[in-house]
């Protein structure tokens, strides 16, 4: 019934009474920042017509409807010396843990989606969307094959005049590991643990597609609907992480872009963890 906050010496993250992310305070600035899970309904087309194909494995083609997963999140707060986390449950198949580690200057979102229900015969493409106050004027940045950040402009192509027939899919770009928006003063970026599709469909927003389950083939060759059964036949469950970095563009070294780069290194070339049973000897021998 009351708002909740978690944080460390770098960040303070606040959640509203509805359980959703509400704001982030860092470097003395409070950023209004909300996040929702939504789903697009996959288009069902006529595969005989090239421009009217179904949404499927090869193409993302929502039918221009979006629905929020839930208007309220049940939350649980965990606090300790190393990590503070808020656990959100939106429904029986969408949940998330938002974490702030004591020594880290980013927010971790560990989402878990699935199996996506399709008893209503509707294919669903799920996204995680963030709204911030950053005035990016339709411009956002995505990395391409992990090599460089490319500038993307909504409803625009650099080398020809474009009029998009599909305003959502036409503005989606591959996100290999990072998507970012910025204005004169602030920058907000999301790092991914895997390649995903992403966009900034509204000023201040970033969205990433996290899971999809579709019931029709798109006739580009696979000849199957993207309807993975998962272990129990109820659909694949996906669990993954996004790391959120937000702050001033003009800070003394390390700059926010440098922080993003170090974080990318750590997350994409992570430490290898190995586990050894040690019941047959004691600590002294091992030391």
């Amino acid at each position, binding site marked *: 019934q009351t708002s909740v906050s978690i944080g460390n010496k770098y960040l303070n993250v606040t959640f509203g009474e509805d359980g959703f992310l509400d704001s982030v305070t860092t470097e003395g600035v409070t950023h209004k920042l909300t996040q929702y899970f939504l789903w697009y309904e996959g288009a069902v087309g006529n595969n005989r017509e090239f421009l009217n194909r179904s949404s499927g494995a090869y193409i993302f083609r929502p039918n221009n409807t979006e629905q929020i997963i839930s208007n309220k999140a049940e939350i649980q707060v965990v606090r*300790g010396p190393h990590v503070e986390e808020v656990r959100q449950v939106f429904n029986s198949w969408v*949940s998330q843990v938002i974490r702030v580690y004591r*020594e880290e200057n980013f927010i971790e979102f560990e989402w878990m989606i699935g199996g996506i229900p399709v008893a209503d015969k509707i294919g669903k493409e799920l996204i995680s969307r963030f709204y911030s106050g950053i005035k990016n004027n339709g411009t956002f940045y995505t990395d391409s094959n992990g090599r460089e950040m490319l500038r993307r402009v909504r409803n625009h192509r650099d080398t020809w005049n474009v009029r998009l027939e599909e305003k959502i899919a036409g503005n989606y770009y591959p996100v290999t590991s990072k998507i970012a928006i910025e204005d004169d003063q602030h920058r907000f970026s999301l790092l991914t643990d895997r390649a995903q599709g992403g966009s900034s469909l509204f000023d201040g927003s970033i969205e990433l597609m996290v899971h999809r389950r579709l019931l029709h083939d798109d006739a580009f060759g696979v000849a199957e609907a993207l309807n993975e059964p998962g272990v129990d036949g109820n659909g694949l469950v996906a669990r993954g992480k996004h790391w959120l970095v937000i702050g001033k563009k003009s800070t003394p070294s390390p700059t926010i872009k440098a922080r993003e780069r170090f974080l990318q290194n750590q997350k994409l070339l992570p*430490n290898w*963890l190995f586990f050894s049973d040690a019941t047959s000897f004691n600590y002294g021998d091992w*030391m």
Partner: protein
Amino acid sequence: EDHLTVLREAMGVMQHHDAITGTEKQKVAFDYSRILHQGMESCSVNVKSALNQLTTRDTDATKKLKFSFNSCPRLNISLCDVSESSEQFIITAYNPLAHSVFEYIRVPVQGDSYVVKDYRNVEIQHQIVSIPDTVKNLDFRKSNSSNELIFLASELPPLGYKSFFVSRKTNYNEIDNNTQEQPEMPQMDH
């Protein structure tokens, strides 16, 4: 070389766009998983051998200490046979980067009282958190662990490793008088 080649060949197969994008038939997806898993298992033989040479000195005292160095590929659903079933175990973190890093290590455990020590007999502060119900209740997750153990692995050296000894406390009042206190956390600028 033979072990490494199994993974090399798997990675060759995985260059196909179908292996990355999900545009393959479902049975092919299962087959890709099988090929990749075999490659990783095969390479793990080399990894174990290399780590055993790095981590042990050839003395009488250490000759008998050969470690298994298991990977836990299902840590993403909070599953790890070794950390869940062993009363004491070692976590070795190898840093593949050319600069020092730190990481919060998070492993599933059954109990709720543990001691984590580094190689200098220094006890590391840790935190126990419960695994979220949404993860615990996954039908396909067969595990008795209900908690995760979290601790900070600090100053992992570039292209090097650090190991941590984790033991389950059987008695809450157990005090190890030989253990040193954890020093102040160093400033961790990159």
